[in-house]
């Protein structure tokens, strides 16, 4: 049984979805006039060359109607893993390629940022010494890294991974450092009085104590990585969901672009939800 509030919020989200669909449908209704500036209709052959079927008297609108979008989406999603060589692969492949890149770049970023964050958190001197550099590098947009990466790393695939790496590094690093630095003094005193050795200190006390904060950084980092990969692939990709967007835009196929945009959003949400699940499992109440 849903509570009153849940029912209301469910109703509101349903209503807003419906509203968006209605506005979409309404604003993409076929236009009546098809002779702007008094340009003549031309003969039947002209009509054929313009892609106007003989029966339909209306012009296709650029932006697909919700119906047209849905038909196209079903068609594309029907065979998400078709593979006709590297230039024509299904959207499932593309999404997978993007996820793989993110996993590699983001995984490397985590492997670097978490230990480095521990060093920062435990050694305030090092944190103070390196913090200015971190603060300068942190706000740089993923796309600003791209030309530098292309010029130095050259290999496009590595560039994309590097861009993900460099963008997701900072939030993980800073959150880890913060999480470690704010571990409660008395827990540290406990492990000192118990003469716990370093590996145990790290894995049984420091890591679990800082884990919720680290996970917060990792969630931010993953969000940034997902933003970056789509942009990077649109620039240099030969696969991936960003490449799919570019390739469909090259064909001016807005239906597919919208579909890809929705999938990007859904995949981003799923990635965040997965990390949120992990975060819940390491969270503790004091």
């Amino acid at each position: 049984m849903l509570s009153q509030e849940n029912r209301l919020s469910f109703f509101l989200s349903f209503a807003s979805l419906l509203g968006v669909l209605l506005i979409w449908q309404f604003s993409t209704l076929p236009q009546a006039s098809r002779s702007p500036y008094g340009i003549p209709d031309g003969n039947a052959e002209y009509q054929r060359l313009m892609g106007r079927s003989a029966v339909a008297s209306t012009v296709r609108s650029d932006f697909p109607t919700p119906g047209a979008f849905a038909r196209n989406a079903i068609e594309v999603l029907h065979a998400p893993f078709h593979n006709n060589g590297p230039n024509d692969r299904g959207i499932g492949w593309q999404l997978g390629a993007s996820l793989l890149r993110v996993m590699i770049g983001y995984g490397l970023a985590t492997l670097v940022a978490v230990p480095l964050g521990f060093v920062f958190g435990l050694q305030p001197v090092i944190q103070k010494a390196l913090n200015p550099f971190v603060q300068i590098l942190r706000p740089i947009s993923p796309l600003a890294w791209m030309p530098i990466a292309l010029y130095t790393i050259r290999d496009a695939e590595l560039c994309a991974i590097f861009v993900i790496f460099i963008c997701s590094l900072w939030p993980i690093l800073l959150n880890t450092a913060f999480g470690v630095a704010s571990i409660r003094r008395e827990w540290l005193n406990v492990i000192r009085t118990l003469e716990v050795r370093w590996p145990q200190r790290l894995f049984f006390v420091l890591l679990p104590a800082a884990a919720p904060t680290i996970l917060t950084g990792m969630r931010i980092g993953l969000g940034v990585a997902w933003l970056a990969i789509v942009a990077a692939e649109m620039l240099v990709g030969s696969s991936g969901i960003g490449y799919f967007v570019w390739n469909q835009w090259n064909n001016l196929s807005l239906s597919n672009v919208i579909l890809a945009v929705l999938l990007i959003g859904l995949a981003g949400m799923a990635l965040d939800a997965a990390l949120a699940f992990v975060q819940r499992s390491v969270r503790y109440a004091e």
Partner: protein
Amino acid sequence: MTLFPFSRRPYAFRAAPCDHGPALACQCGSTYPGIFTTGHENGLPTGAMSAQASVPAISRRHFLGAATGSAALAGLAGLFAPHAAMADTAPSGVVEKPDLNIGFVPISCSAPLIMATAKGFFQSEGLNVQLRKTAGWALIRDKLLDGSLDASHLLSPMPLALSLGLGGNAAQPIRVATMQNINGQAITLALKHWHKRDPRDWKGMTFAIPFQFSMHNLLLRNYLALHGLDPDKDVSLRVTAPPDMVANLKAGNIDGFLGPEPFNQRAVYEEAGFLHVLSADLWDGHPCCAFGTTASFAEKYPNTYRALQRAMIRAAYFMQEPSNRLEAAHIMAQAAYLNQPEIVIEQSLTGHYADGLGVVRDNPRRSGFSPYPYPSMAVWILSQFSRWGYLKENIPLQETAQRIFMIDEVRKQAAALALPAPEDGQNNWPVLTVMGQRFDAFHPPSYSKG
């Protein structure tokens, strides 16, 4: 064994009035082997002599002195460096590197590359080619230079610009293996300008071009200048990806573009614009896209390079045959290639098209395909580079052109395939007619800007 490959083609000296041999040609520097083949209709010594007389203005010594310390020097030093790898081995030599990554930008100009793949021309040369659809010319350039592409579809000015180190890159010698296509571009205007057909009315407009070092940019600038507009002051030119050209035309952000097919026809199809003029009507036979690779690749894998040339020559001949165009359009429309409506590609390839203003037109010369990289065309491109300030140094135009647009290589491979020679026979330096104006590669006009 001679040091300078360009002086090493004995047939280039066939018509030489004073045969002082390759070594001498190198020493005096002002003697271009190529000029002796300059046809001037019949290759008469008088014509050749007059051409010869005009060239010494830019001697190699002069060039080396003038360009000391410049980026172009570094580039040209590489260009003229002695190398003997391009041995004239038999065309049937073993392919050294059968698995190749070749880049292309999804436009109609890449038709020969697509056909060479789809019709098995690469395969029959023992090449296993993977075509890589690439998002733009800057990326094509980067990927070719970093070796992730073995060879690539290029805009024909790109090999010249890259070899000279223009546009901020370190100079890296690039070869045109074959030309891909001629004609096949157009100036598209927004529908709202249907009455502004005179370029003199275009002051203040914004036009899109696909790349700085593109025939599109050079043709548009030439066209505007011909009609009294300064392309740097009177209009604004914006480098834009082709699909963005159509979208921006529709949105009203640009007034027109000189773009590659099928995007001109696509703008018509989307009812965003109309075809103002076909590039075939500006300069019939102008080069557009080339197929090229780095000089180091060509030297390292000479047999592979020649196999690529042969496949691309066959593909260009295939495309040039009008009866093959519909089949080509069908193949090119596939998602793996252009990913465009077939009917749009068809119109740009066959020249039977809707012009966007309600009229069906026919121009069989709208798109053409030719594998021959004429050095005279390269000289035109280089002269335009100078004209628009991309090239600051004085360089030996003909020598540079010949070093990058190596037409004789292509002729040799075409002959090996027993394909008919082009209409102009063996003339590598045809006099061009660009927008009604005569262009002689040995007497390039001195442009005074503004």
